């Protein structure tokens, strides 16, 4: 069976700095996979390579066995790769509903339409409201982003991405910056993700990672350092030395 998403010897250098070294990685269908590593390990660079924000210096990215290394970002989204951002990237001047509408309109191909009012696409509005209801955001659908507490904003970030109905979902520190009193809504939302999509989560929060992931990849200085089940990774003395020990300090 071919993997959902795969990289082969993927490398990226910025001048003399090698941010990603020879990474061969697979994400299976329905996977709950975590990518961890100390600060500066190149985790976000790796996500940027997967989504096509950056072009690799060497190596390939494959989606269901098809080489998509040269495919640009917007096209990869259409193929089913979507991400959330470490720092919220929302349409701050718009309502929660309009934020989600934007993503769904792109997915269903409504967005290029110039001559029909956006409000006449009842299908897009309905689907947006359904998604918001699922994420328990329906009651605040009419609010503008700045009026929401950070935890809710984080949820909107997730909602926009889910509106793209991805097959591959990349979550970049989904609970970062959320006060612990609110973080359960994020965790619940992640637990409730459709079972068939492959999810890759990047996080520092070990509780979240161990609760969520069935498989963990440890990235150190741009290269794969270790890979295994949470149990194996938790027990790996080398990982403890380079990463878990360090994480305890900050």
């Amino acid at each position, binding site marked *: 069976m071919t993997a959902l998403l795969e990289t082969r010897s993927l490398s990226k250098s910025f001048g003399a700095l090698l941010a990603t070294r020879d990474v061969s990685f697979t994400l299976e269908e329905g996977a709950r996979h975590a990518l961890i590593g100390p600060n500066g390990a190149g985790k976000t660079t790796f996500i940027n390579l997967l989504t096509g924000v950056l072009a690799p210096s060497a190596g390939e990215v494959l989606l269901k066995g098809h080489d998509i290394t040269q495919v640009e970002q917007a096209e990869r989204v259409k193929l089913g790769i979507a991400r959330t951002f470490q720092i919220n*990237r929302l349409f701050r*001047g*718009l309502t929660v*509903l309009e934020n989600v509408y934007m993503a769904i309109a792109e997915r269903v191909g409504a967005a290029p339409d*110039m*001559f029909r009012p956006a409000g006449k696409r009842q299908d897009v509005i309905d689907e947006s409201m359904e998604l918001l209801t699922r994420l328990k955001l329906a009651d605040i*659908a*009419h609010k503008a982003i700045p009026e929401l507490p950070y935890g809710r904003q984080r949820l909107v970030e997730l909602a926009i991405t889910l509106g793209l109905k991805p097959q591959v979902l990349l979550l970049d520190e989904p609970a970062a910056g959320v006060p612990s009193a609110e973080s359960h809504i994020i965790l619940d939302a992640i637990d409730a993700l459709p079972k068939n999509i492959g999810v890759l989560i990047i996080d520092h929060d070990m509780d979240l990672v161990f609760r969520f992931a069935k498989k963990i990849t440890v990235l150190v200085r741009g290269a794969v350092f270790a890979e295994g089940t949470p149990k194996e990774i938790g027990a790996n003395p080398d990982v403890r030395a380079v990463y878990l020990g360090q994480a305890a300090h900050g």
Partner: protein
Amino acid sequence: MSVFPTATDHPAARALAGRHRLRLWEPLPWLLALAFYVAFPTYLGFGTDLLVTILFAISLDLVLGYAGIVTLGHAAFFGAGAYTVGMLAFHGIWAEPITSLIAAAAVAALVGLLSGLVLLRTTGLTLLMLTLCTMALLEEAANLAHDWTGGFDGLPSIAIPPLFGLFEFNPLYPNTQYLYALGVLFICFVFVRVLVYSPFGQSLTGIRENTLRMHAVGAPVRMRLIVCYTISAAIAGIAGGLWAQANAYVNLSTLGLDRAATVLIILVLGGYGRLYGAFVGAVAYMVLSHLLAKIYPTAWQLGLGLLLVIIALFARGGILGVGETLLRWFGRRRPSP
């Protein structure tokens, strides 16, 4: 859980579904424009100028207010349209008013498309510089191509044949010019209004609010911007063409930094990204400048400068924005006597 029986009934969903509907006051500007025609027959020259300026400001609103492209060079397209009409008529090639305007739109759109293809790769200071340089380049080119454009002196006294073969463009009694400009403005406005409420318009707003996220939801951002820039250029070209027909001449002032800065000020004064900001801004600016600029040019410049500083620091929504804030403020106070 939501208190609304179905998602479609949610007020947010209903607000979005009804956002594009015509509001009660929207015929008002057009009624006022017709009333002006009846009430001030001696000011129709000024009125025509005002209508052209509104149209130009609307074209800028599309790129600046909706798509968020900060440009200092929008007069490039106004000038392209004006010179298209002027040169076609002056050299005896084509002068019929409406088809000339279409030609003006086409040429300006082409300039917008070609410059947009290259300069919309950039952002920030570089983009600002490139819009400025493109306009300066066209101005210099118009200055140099003396045989075609009349160079520094421009093209005087262009003969425009009657509209529909019936209505004369009389420079002394510009009734035809005024109604013609009003008609063109109305058609263009309806088009822009449809555009900004469409999903396409919505996606332009998305690019303005967060370009990175628009990439991440799979939008072809650069292509959307180029399309928007080209459409806006075409409308600016129509405005320029109208200007040339109404004034019966063309000169370098249609292409200069002065005109580009003025239209920017007008839009910001009225409130950008609001469709009607162009109307309010143009009326406020043109009336004030008509009354003040000729009598106290320095005081006018001083006041305008202070106004810009105040808008930038305290009133980003312009006149309409301040109005909205006041309305909301009163609205909130009323229920609690």
